[in-house]
């Protein structure tokens, strides 16, 4: 469908633009706003890819929780919220390295067959079967890692630690 291709091109351009803007604007709060747009844009891409569950998860976890968490991180570490970062030069070597990475990965795409033949339709029952039965151990591992991470975070910021 031509509409899907137009939607994909627009979403891809917005994703790259907001990603670059998030790292280049001078005010940290504006960075958070751009990165929120970036996360919502990726959620739209997931919907385009017939993965609505993942799209909703992206909206809830990234666009919601992570954005607010980063905003709190800025609020508690600065005296004034709208204080600007010192401008740092772009730097030739990091920029060159990023461009080389991009060219390398794009050159590697030639190894794949170029068009898909299978039809994939979203089926929530099958996805939950796969997620909780086949990949259940990974979910348990994720829960364990989250528990340890929360414990470690509390240990890092607890009172009276020198």
């Amino acid at each position, binding site marked *: *469908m031509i509409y899907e*291709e137009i939607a*994909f091109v627009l979403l*891809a351009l917005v*994703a790259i633009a907001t*990603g*670059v803007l*998030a*790292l280049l604007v001078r005010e*940290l709060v504006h*960075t958070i706003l751009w*990165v929120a747009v*970036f996360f919502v844009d*990726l959620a739209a*891409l*997931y919907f385009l*890819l*017939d*993965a609505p*569950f*993942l799209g909703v*998860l992206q909206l809830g976890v*990234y666009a919601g929780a*992570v954005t607010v*968490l*980063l905003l*709190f*991180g800025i609020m508690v*570490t600065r005296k004034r919220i709208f204080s600007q970062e010192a401008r*740092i030069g772009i*730097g030739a070597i*990091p920029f060159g*390295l*990023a461009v080389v*990475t*991009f060219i390398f*990965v794009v050159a590697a795409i030639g190894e*794949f*067959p*170029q*068009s*898909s*033949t*299978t*039809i*994939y339709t979203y089926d929530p029952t*099958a*996805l939950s079967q*796969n*997620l909780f039965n086949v*990949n259940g151990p*990974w*979910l348990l591992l994720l829960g364990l*890692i*989250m528990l340890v*991470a*929360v414990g*470690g975070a509390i240990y*890092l*910021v607890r009172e009276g630690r020198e």
Partner: protein
Amino acid sequence: MTDLPIVGFVGLSAALLAVGLFGILTRRNFILLLIAIEIAMNAAILNFVYFAAYAGGTPGLTGQSIAVVLVGFGATEVAVGLAIVLALNRLKGTINVARATELKL
């Protein structure tokens, strides 16, 4: 949705990875560093979702399951990173990673 070309999606992932890598290499603010890492990680998750739709059937569902787990990992990583930001801010009064030299020999 299977008509979308693979070059577009993997190229988008590569571009986002390059943006994240560029941010990791140039930014000195810890929060910006975390955001750059998240952008690079989202590029990886997008790859999983795309190849899930590309494969279809059971492999596709496995790709989506892995993506769900990775979203959880990303959120965990931000939580721990912000705890480190708070500890660094209390210790040094700044969140510039160039000032975090406690572990240098």
